[in-house]
């Protein structure tokens, strides 16, 4: 569904990603693990087009997308949920969802407020609440729900467990399993190995802008050496 091969990305003069390759298959949950500053967010931004890779290829559903504008990529059914959430604070919950709304597409589940309410019960209670007046956890749910309104076949989820209460982290894990069940492929970035273990099928580990490990979650959990080298704080 999504193949990234050998991309290099820069911020100005700084070489952030060096030769990153990874793959997400249909219906799969893949986690990109790494410490702060390892290049997780930059990888996701390079896929959605907010950072333009200097070289390498990004293929989504059989089409090269690394030179396309973000809105074109999004319209192909690749959703992006930013780490900073970037909720429209002046807009209500329903209006935030409206911004994300796109026509239904084949081979991807279609979402509306009702179905999202089943996934995130908190949102159902506050359709007219302004984005700026929501808690961090509620905003985290809203930002995912907003991206789902685009009826994506695959979503990029940047650190969904960061900075939210433990009870919300559990809800996030529940929601990700729900999305997988609905048939949405997910690439999520994480620092939290425990959280990743709960939701993901496969893992990549990124360090200093390069992929250092690739394997199933079972292989990663069995490999204490890799965990200690790349993920221990």
């Amino acid at each position, binding site marked *: 569904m999504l193949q990234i091969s050998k991309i290099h990305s820069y911020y100005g003069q700084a070489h952030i990603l060096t030769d990153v390759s990874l793959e997400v298959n249909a219906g799969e949950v893949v986690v990109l693990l790494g410490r702060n500053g390892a290049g997780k967010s930059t990888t996701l931004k390079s896929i959605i087009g*907010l950072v333009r890779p200097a070289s390498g290829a990004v293929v989504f559903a059989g089409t090269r997308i690394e030179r396309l504008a973000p809105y074109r990529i999004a319209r192909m059914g690749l959703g992006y949920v930013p780490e900073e959430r970037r909720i429209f604070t002046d807009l209500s919950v329903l209006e935030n969802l409206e*911004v994300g709304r796109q026509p239904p597409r084949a081979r991807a589940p279609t979402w509306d407020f009702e179905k999202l309410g089943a996934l995130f019960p908190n949102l159902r209670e506050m359709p007219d609440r302004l984005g700026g007046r929501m808690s961090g956890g509620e905003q985290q749910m809203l930002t995912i729900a907003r991206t789902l309104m*685009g009826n994506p076949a695959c979503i990029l989820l940047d650190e969904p467990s960061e900075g939210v209460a433990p009870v919300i982290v559990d809800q996030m894990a529940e929601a990700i399993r729900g999305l997988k069940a609905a048939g949405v492929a997910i690439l999520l970035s994480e620092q939290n190995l425990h959280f990743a273990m709960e939701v993901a099928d496969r893992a990549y580990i990124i360090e200093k802008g390069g992929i250092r490990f690739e394997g199933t979650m079972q292989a990663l959990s069995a490999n204490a050496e890799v965990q200690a080298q790349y993920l221990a704080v």
Partner: protein
Amino acid sequence: MSPDAFAVQFLNGLASASTLFLIAVGLSLIFGVTRIVNFAHGSFYMLGIFVAYSLVTRIGDSPFGFWVSMLLAALVVAIVGLLVELVLLRRIYQAPELFQLLATFAVVLIVRDATLAIWGPEDLLGPRAPGLKGSVDILGRQFPTYDLVLICIGPAVLAALWFVLTRTRFGVLIRAATQDRDMVGALGVNQAWLFSGVFALGAFLAALGGALQLPREPANLGIDLVAIGEAFVVVVVGGMGSIPGAFLAAFIIAEIKAMCFAIGQTTLFGVSFSFSKLTLVVEFLVMAAVLIWRPWGLMGRPGAATRNAAEIEVPLKPADARTRKLGWVVLIALVLLPLVGTAFPYTIVLSIDILVAVLFATSLHFIMGPGGMHSFGHAAYFGLGAYGAGLLVKQLGWPMEGALAAAPVAAAVGALIFGWFCVRLSGVYLAMLTLAFAQIVWSIAFQWDELTGGSNGIVGLWPAEWLSEKWAYYYLTLTLTVAGVLLLWRVLLAPFGYALRAGRDSPLRADAIGIDVFHTQWMGFVLAGAVCGVAGGLFAFSKGSIAPEAISVGRSIDGLVMVLLGGIQTLSGPVVGAALFTWLQDLIAREFQYWRAALGFTILVLVLAFPLGVAGSIKRLFVKEVA
């Protein structure tokens, strides 16, 4: 004041507020979504009046024809706005914001001359609105019926906009993009069409505001800059991007002006004071007060500091041997110039103008580039220097040399006061506050007849005996300009200059390593003001007079154009830009009736072809490796 006069003036204020709101709200919408400060917005307003004139005189005999003309005029201008967006702005959304300003200013020049070519230079007075020619009785006074309709149009447009923004997808997207347009794009919205739509809508509203003015005031070529000035004030007072804010600010400003008219001449504490004279400056006083008290406007919200959002710049370096050599060649040529100049006397006159412009632009560049403070009111310090010197000669009988020496002091004192307020702000707000102070200086010069000679200015300011020959004055100008430019360059390469640039690039970090950013910027502001004052003094004595026109907003904008033309990231940029601009302006203005449009197109070509400025682009050609 009698209640009936008060009531009529209050209604007058409401009618003006409607128009002001229509212009300002479009400007605010466009800024909110595209982050472009659209100088051409006043031009859309002006076009609205002219197009409405043509339509109304053809089909506006009936009430139906009149109102259709109004809407058609706005629609025509909306299409013009759409074309501007598609052809020009779409190419420069990623460019630095000052370049965008420059580009929209070029549009102002082009539209002005296009209007001149189509409708001619005469003021055109439209017919009064059919069916609304009469007046109604308000407490025994007559009030035009048409103005009552106008009063209703403002709130009606506010309601319509509110409906669009909250009840339509287009509106929701506008509001979302105002907050985070990249995120809107990442959610699958094509921003390009959103931007075009908002720009056309803004142009429509401005033109509607203009068209509706037709029965009240003549279509006039100078009205574009007046309108944009007022609209800026309203938008800044209300809060950039806030629509209710624009409405509130339009109401407050229009009413304060109306009340100034209503009070008129009055005696306060034994001093006779004319409030109606205050109207030219009162909106800028309101803006200054609001910006000091609530820098983000009445209904805006505090944004993140934007001053350090600029591109990372290559550090300034002292000139290398080759550049120094080139500098010496230029200097020697300038010293030798009067030798050939005797054959072409005009060369000397033009050269003096160029040198004055160089000093003016270099001092502006000092605070804009390395200081990171985008001043839209640098004419204030030019004017303080010129008027300061002129008044010392005329009122106190000082000799010319002493008065010229005092010019930088006068300008520095002004910069000391204005700068204390200005350096607290950043980005667009800083630009607007500097503009406000410049307008205040301008209107004092314009209004205080007894002291400044009003619109005629101060005349008979001639150089001292030993400088009376043009070449002698040329050498004085050359000496002071070279000294001023070298002083500013030296300061930029000294620790003070490093501190200034550190404060620009990251105020927080600069503060954290012990740099007093506030004082550094403040003193930078004062130094630039002082040097600019010298330019003002030189200008006054070279022309023999100083009038308000020479220190108007036009001069501030000329300075910006010079700096951006030359390239803001190089030390030599403002020198090249000022020389090129002054020479081009002189050349085109003498040869060609439509010199404004020619200048505008030149600016556009330069903006699109040399995004680094002329000097910056030449440097890029020669310096292969960017550090």
